[in-house]
C-alpha cells in the first residue's frame, strides 16, 4: 500500500529516498563516485596517519611475539598467577577479544536477515574486525597451556599415543566453538568480498590484476552469478546467526560449569552474549569513527548509522546492567552464603575498584544515549565507545579474578596482581589486532561496495536520472 502511495510523491532523479526515510548514503553519490571513493583508498598510497598507526601496531605485534617467546622459554610462572588465582589475564584477554568478535557477525548475519539496510555501510570492516579479534583471542588459549609446543593436543589429531582430547574439558569446547565461528565468519566475509574484489580487479593492471583476479574467482556480475551469490550469502547468514549466540554461550559455560561461587550461574550464557555484542559494537564504533575521519567516509558512514549503533550500545549495555543486578538478586534470593559472599565481596571487597570501574563504564556510560543530541555527537560517542571497551575488559577481569581470589578456603585467599609480562602480552595483542586491521584497510575495500550500491536511490528499479529539459 505504501509503495503505491509513495511513488507519485517522489521526485525522480533527486537524492530522496522512498517514503521520506533518511537516505543511507549522503552527498549525492552515484555508483561511479562511490566506486571511485572506496576503490581509491586501496589504490592510492596510504595516508600518513596509516603509516604512523601501522608502525605502532607492528611494534606491538613484535612485542607480543617476544613476550610469547619468553613465556615459552620460562613458563607461565612469569605471569602474576598465584594459588588460588590460576586463571588470570590469559582468559580475561581471551574472553575480551572473542567478545569483540561478536559485532561483526551480528551486523552481517542477524541484521541482514532482519533487512536492516543500514548495516551495509559498516558490515565489511565489522566482519574484518571480527575475524582479527578472533585470531587475537585464539592466541591466548594457545599460549596459556604453558608448553606451547603441545598445543596441538587440543585438536583431535590421530596419534601414536591413541589419546583424544577430553570432551569434558571446557578448553576443548572453546576450540570447537571459536574455531567454527572463525571458519564461518571468514567464509562469510570472503563471499561478501568477491564482487568488490572483481570491481577492484577491473580497475587494476598487471600483477595486481592477476592477484585480484585470482581471489575474485572469475566474477563477472552476470545475472546467474548474482542469483547464486545471493543464495549463498543468505545461507551463510543463516548459518552464522546461531553462532552469534552459541560462541559466547560456550565461553560463558567454561565458567558456569565450575563450582565456583560467582561463576556457577545459569544466567551466564545470555549475560555473556549481551556483553559480547555490547563490547563488539563499542570496538566497531571506535574503529569506524577513526577510519571515517582519516579516509573521509562521512557520506557513507553517516551520523544516522552511528546513531543506530549507539542505540544498540544502549540496549545491550542496559541488558548487561540488568544482568549485574540479577546476579545480586539471585545471590540474595538463594540465601547460599557462599554465593552471597561472592557478590558482596565483588562490589565491596579488595577488587571493589575494578567492580565500580566496570559498573560505571558498562552501565552508566551508555545511558547518555537516551538523549538524541548525545547520540549524534561524534566526540561524545567516541569517548563513550572507549569507555565501553575499558568496561568490558574489566567485566571479564572482575568475573575471573574476584571469584577465584576468595574461594571456599579462606586460608588460601590471595590477591592477584598482574606482572609486567601480563601487561605486555595484553598490549601486544592490540598490536597483533591492529596490524591485521590496518593491512585490511590498506589492501581490501573497507566498505561493502556492491551492497552500498544496492541501497542507493539509483538501484531502485523505478529510478531514472532526470536530464535537463525533462518534464515530469
Amino acid at each position, binding site marked *: 500500500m505504501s509503495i503505491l502511495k509513495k511513488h507519485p510523491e517522489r521526485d525522480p532523479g533527486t537524492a530522496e529516498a522512498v517514503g521520506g526515510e533518511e537516505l543511507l548514503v549522503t552527498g549525492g553519490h552515484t555508483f561511479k563516485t562511490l566506486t571511485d571513493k572506496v576503490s581509491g583508498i586501496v589504490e592510492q598510497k596510504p595516508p600518513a596517519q596509516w603509516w604512523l598507526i601501522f608502525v605502532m601496531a607492528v611494534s606491538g605485534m613484535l612485542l607480543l611475539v617476544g613476550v610469547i617467546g619468553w613465556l615459552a622459554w620460562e613458563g607461565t610462572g612469569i605471569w602474576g598467577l598465584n594459588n588460588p588465582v590460576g586463571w588470570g589475564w590469559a582468559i580475561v584477554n581471551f574472553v575480551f577479544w572473542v567478545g569483540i568478535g561478536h559485532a561483526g557477525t551480528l551486523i552481517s548475519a542477524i541484521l541482514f536477515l532482519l533487512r536492516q539496510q543500514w548495516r551495509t555501510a559498516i558490515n565489511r570492516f565489522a566482519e574484518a574486525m571480527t575475524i582479527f579479534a578472533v585470531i587475537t583471542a585464539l592466541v591466548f588459549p594457545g599460549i596459556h597451556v604453558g608448553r606451547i609446543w603441545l598445543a596441538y593436543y587440543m585438536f583431535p589429531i590421530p596419534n*601414536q599415543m591413541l*589419546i583424544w582430547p577430553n570432551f569434558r574439558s571446557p578448553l576443548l569446547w572453546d576450540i570447537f566453538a571459536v574455531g567454527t565461528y572463525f571458519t564461518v565468519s571468514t567464509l562469510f566475509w570472503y563471499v561478501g568480498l568477491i564482487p568488490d574484489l572483481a570491481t577492484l580487479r577491473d580497475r587494476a593492471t598487471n600483477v595486481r*590484476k592477476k592477484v585480484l583476479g585470482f581471489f575474485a574467482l572469475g566474477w563477472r556480475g552476470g545475472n546467474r552469478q548474482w542469483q547464486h551469490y545471493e543464495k549463498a550469502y543468505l545461507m551463510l547468514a543463516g548459518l552464522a546467526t546461531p553462532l552469534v549466540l552459541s560462541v559466547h554461550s560456550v565461553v560463558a559455560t567454561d565458567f558456569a560449569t565450575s563450582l565456583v561461587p560467582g561463576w556457577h550461574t545459569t544466567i551466564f550464557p545470555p549475560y555473556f552474549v549481551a556483553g559480547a555484542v555490547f563490547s563488539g559494537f563499542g570496538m566497531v564504533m571506535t574503529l569506524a569513527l577513526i577510519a571515517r575521519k582519516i579516509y573521509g567516509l562521512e557520506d557513507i558512514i553517516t551520523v544516522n548509522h552511528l546513531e543506530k549503533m549507539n542505540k544498540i550500545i544502549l540496549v545491550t549495555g542496559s541488558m548487561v546492567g540488568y544482568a549485574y543486578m540479577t546476579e545480586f538478586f539471585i545471590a540474595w534470593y538463594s540465601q547460599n552464603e557462599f554465593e552471597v559472599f561472592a557478590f558482596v565481596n565483588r562490589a565491596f571487597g579488595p577488587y571493589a575498584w575494578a567492580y565500580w570501574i566496570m559498573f560505571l563504564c558498562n552501565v552508566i556510560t551508555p545511558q547518555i544515549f537516551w538523549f538524541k543530541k548525545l547520540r549524534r555527537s561524534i566526540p561524545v560517542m567516541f569517548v563513550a565507545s572507549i569507555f565501553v571497551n575499558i568496561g568490558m575488559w574489566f567485566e571479564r577481569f572482575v568475573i575471573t579474578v574476584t571469584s577465584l581470589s576468595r574461594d571456599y578456603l579462606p586460608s588460601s585467599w590471595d590477591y592477584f596482581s598482574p606482572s609486567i609480562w601480563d601487561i605486555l602480552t595484553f598490549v601486544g595483542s592490540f598490536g597483533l589486532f591492529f596490524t591485521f586491521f590496518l593491512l585490511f584497510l590498506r589492501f581490501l575495500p573497507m566498505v561493502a561496495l556492491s551492497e552500498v550500491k544496492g541501497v542507493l536511490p539509483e538501484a531502485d528499479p523505478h529510478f531514472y536520472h532526470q536530464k535537463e529539459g525533462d518534464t515530469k
Partner: protein
Amino acid sequence: MAQIFPKWTNKAPKYVLIGLVVAIALVSYLIDYYASPMYTDVGYRPNQPVPYSHKVHAGDLGLDCRFCHAGVEISPVAGLPPTQTCMNCHNMIKADSEKLALVQESFKSGYPMQWVRVHKSPDYVYFDHSAHITAGVGCASCHGRIDEMEIVSQEEPLSMGWCLTCHRNPDDHLRPAGEVTNMSWTPPANQAEFAASQKRLLDIKAPITDCTGCHR
C-alpha cells in the same frame, strides 16, 4: 574484455583440490608411520660388549628368564645378573674362551659389565615388571621371541598407543602363572574363558587407562 587467465585455469581448481586431498592423505600416512616408534624404535639392535647369545642360553639350553633377570617378579625392573651369575657356569665351561675375556675381567676387578640397554621407556613413564608378571602377561608379549635372538633387538614399538591397546583389551595376553616365561606359548582355543577366570582368580580389575596409571 580480455581474459586475465588462460583457458586451462578453468580446470585448475579441480586438480588442485584432488591434489590437496591426495597430498594430505599421503603426508598423514608418512608421518603416522615414519615418525612413530613403529619405524624409529622397532628393530633397535645395539651390539653388546660380549657376544652373549640369548638363543643359546634361553633357547637351546632352556634357561628360564628368571635365572638371570631375577627381579622381574618382585620389582619394577627385571634387572641384569651380576657377573657372578655368569661365572657359576663359566668358570668351568669355556673358561678360556676369548669371547669371555671381558666377563673374566669384570669378575676379577669387581666392576659390573657395561651392557647396552635395548628396551627403554621414558623417565615420565612409570612401568612395573612385577605387576605385569603377576597378572600373567608373558615376557614374549612385549619382548618377542628372545629365545631365537642371537643379539637382542626391540620387537615392539613400546609407544603409548601400543601400551594402551593391551591395557584396553588385555585378554589375549594373559596366561597361567607357570607359562609366563614360556617363549613358545600360544593361546589355547578357550583363551577368552581362561582370561575371564584368570581375572576372577587374581581379582584383577580392568587395567588402568587413566593418565595417572603410568604418568605419576
